[in-house]
Every structure is written in C-alpha cells, then in structure tokens.
C-alpha cells in the first residue's frame, strides 16, 4: 500500500503523457456523461415527482429497477447495436469515447431520475398546491423545483459522477480500452491487474480517488454555500 501510494505521487508528479491522456479521457467521459444524465434524469425525476397519473407507481418501480441496470449488460447491448454488423454500425461509434458516454448515460440516467424522484417528492408535494393555484407554466414550475432542490440535486449529481468515473464493465466493452483513445482510469486499472502490475493498478486507483475527492470538495463548498444562504 505504501509503495502504491508512493507510486501514485510519483506518477502525478511525472507529467507522464500516457497518464495525462488517460486522466483527460476519464474526465471528459465522466463529466460529459454525468452532465447529460443529470439533465435527462432530473427532467424525468421531476416530471414523475410533480405529476399524479395512472400507473405512476409502476413507472417508479421500473425507474428504481433500472437503477440497478448491470453495466456489462448495457455494454453488451450497445456493442450489439453499434458494432459493424449492428443496426447502428454505420455510425462508426464502436470503440469511441462517444459510445462510452452513451453507455454511461444509459446507466446513470435512471439513477439520477430515481434519486431525483425520491429526494424531490416530499418538497414537490409541499410546493404543488401553491404552484397549481398560481397556474404556473411547466418551465416556471421546473425552475422553481430545481431552485428548491439545489441542495439535493448536487448530491444526486455527485452520485452520478461517482458512478461515471468508477464504472468499468460497459466502457470496457464499448470502448475496447484502446491506448491513447479509449483507455480510462478504470479500464487501465483492470488491465494492470490482469497483467499482474498490482502496484500500478493501486496507484491509478489512488489517483482516481483524488479526482473524486476534488469533485466532492467543490460540491461540498457549493452545498455549504447554499446551506448558509437558506
């Protein structure tokens, strides 16, 4: 562990082009996919939370079930759809960061939607009579709900980002772990483990944790600011 920690700091200080590329690809993929998933998931989550309709309970159950979508299953499904012989093969997205982002959006959106629905329902229920009484349009209602749930939605985003940055199953399959193209931290860790380079795998894992820590610190500062303003 000590050696791995030492190696992690050495790598971070070395300005190694391969590590820089892996970190950049990881961040690009994780930030893009978590941001898209946040937009879609919050929209779906708030729509479900703010409306009463026939079959709502079924939708909520489906959403919660999809939160546990197996990454390898999503990877295989997208591989079949986007590989050369698949229906979307002509888009030539297989083994690209774009498809890795799509895979993560598929995986993370239900998590964001489910968490948004769960955390926002009590707030939305309190807001609903007032918003309905004022006959506010959908955009205004959405804006107000996001404003009221900022604190909760930051937590939801953090979870989405954590899932994006640490996911390996789906991105390995659709990305192919190609050097200088689709290799990300998690696939690099898996590769080093497979080749017996445990020290390097651990070091990369520690760097990944540092990235997650930095993101969490920014979010915590934001949340603290919001909490103080409340």
């Amino acid at each position, binding site marked *: 562990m000590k050696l791995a920690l030492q190696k992690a700091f050495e790598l971070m200080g070395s300005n190694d082009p391969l590590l820089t590329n892996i970190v950049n690809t990881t961040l690009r993929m994780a930030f893009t996919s978590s941001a898209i998933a946040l937009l879609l998931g919050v929209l779906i989550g708030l729509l479900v939370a703010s409306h009463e309709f026939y079959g709502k309970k079924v939708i909520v159950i489906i959403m919660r079930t999809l939160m546990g979508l197996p990454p390898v299953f999503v990877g295989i499904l997208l591989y079949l759809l986007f590989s050369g012989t698949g229906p979307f093969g002509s888009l030539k997205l297989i083994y690209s960061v774009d498809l890795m982002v799509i895979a993560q959006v598929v995986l993370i959106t239900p998590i964001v939607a489910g968490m948004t629905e769960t955390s926002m329902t009590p707030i939305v229920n*309190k*807001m609903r*009579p*007032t*918003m*309905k*009484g*004022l*006959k*506010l*349009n959908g955009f*205004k209602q959405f804006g*107000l709900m996001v*404003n*009221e749930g*900022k604190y909760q939605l930051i937590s939801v985003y953090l979870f989405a980002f954590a899932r994006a940055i640490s996911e390996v199953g789906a991105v390995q399959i659709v990305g192919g772990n190609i050097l200088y193209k689709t290799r990300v931290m998690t696939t690099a860790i898996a590769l080093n483990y497979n080749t017996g380079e445990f020290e390097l795998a651990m070091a990369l894992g520690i760097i990944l944790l540092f990235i997650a820590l930095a993101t969490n610190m920014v979010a915590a500062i934001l949340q603290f600011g919001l909490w103080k*303003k*409340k």
Partner: protein
Amino acid sequence: MIEIKAKKKYGDRIVLDDSFTFLEGKIYAVIGTNGSGKSTLLSILSKQLKNDTETFVYYGKIGYMPQSSYAFNLSVKNSIKIAIPDLEKSKTIKQDYYKFRINRYLRELDLEKISRKKASKLSGGETQKVALARTLLCRHDLLLLDEPTSAMDIQATATAEKVLNDYISEFNPTLIFSTHSVKQAERIADYVIFLKDGKIIETAPAKEFLENPKTEELKQFLQEK
C-alpha cells in the same frame, strides 16, 4: 351563478357530499370545525382535487391560496413576482402595472422592509401575507382563499382584510374563503356556509346567520367560539 355537486370520498370516509350554489360577485365564508370539508370544497373548486361526482366546469379565472402556502427559496419580492402571467410579461405597460401592484402590496401588507429577505425564512404570518399578495396580484373572477389569515396576529389580519376589501372593490370577484373566525366571516362575507361532516348544516346572509342561528349544531359551534 356557480353551482357544484361536490363529493369527495377517501376509502369509506366521506369528507364532502353536498350541492353548493354561489352567486357571482358575492362573498362567502365557509366555517366549520376541523375536518368539516372546508379545505376539500376549496380544493375541488380550485381544481386541485378531482370531484368524485362531476367535473367542475368554470370558465373564468380562478385564484387559489392554499391553507399552507409554500414559502419559496426566493426573496419576498420575487416570491410575489412569480405570479405575473407569462403572456403579459413581454408587454411593457403590463409590466409596469404589475410592478405597481407588487410595490403597493409590499407597502400595504408591511412587507417593504423584508422585501429582499428569503421567503423561506419568514414567520407563518409573514408567509401568509406574501401568499395573499401573490394571489391578489392578478384579476380573478373566482377567488378561493383557504384560511388566509390563520397565522396572522390581530393587526396583520386587519391589514390583510383591508387589502382584500380593496381588491373586492376593484375587481368584484366571487370570493369564497374558509375561516375559523366567526367574527371575520361577519366582517367580510355576504353569506356564511356552515359545514359539518361534509354537509351544509346552515347557510344564510352573514348578519342573520350569526344573530339568529337556526340549527342546534350551529348554536353549539357559535357557543364554543
């Protein structure tokens, strides 16, 4: 004339089941104990709740202030501002009109000093003042207020009633409000409706109603008050 056969049932429990008629431009106070169906009636009329028997059809503009108005995480001024109708936002004259009305309510309801304060940090009475200002910002044909001054002190209640009276003089809406204060019903309403267990027990012009109650239930209710 506004007519509705209102019914609401939750499981086996009937919370409201009676026919109501309201004359346009008149003021009605709905009184009764907790659970008598006052809020349910207002929720059905405001279309927040679905009526069990028939869909309530009303083509005029309905304004509704719920019993527990939400205090948004916005400034007091912005909390009132959100009620400006979207279509009228782009028109400069209308914008000035609403700006004037917001400032007027901030002044009249004694909210000027706290206009920049977060609405979510206000007391119950102040929150009701903001909610009342927001509801009264636009012209409504049917105005429904669910215990609009229940959290206000005597002075704030008097101020709110004055603002409400000015609004009535200005727009002449049909106003239906629920209250626990018999005195308030007498001060504001033309007619009073006394509900018990979801049914109308007695309805009459305000003065007659309070001076000369006919049913034992109402006599008892007034005695308790």
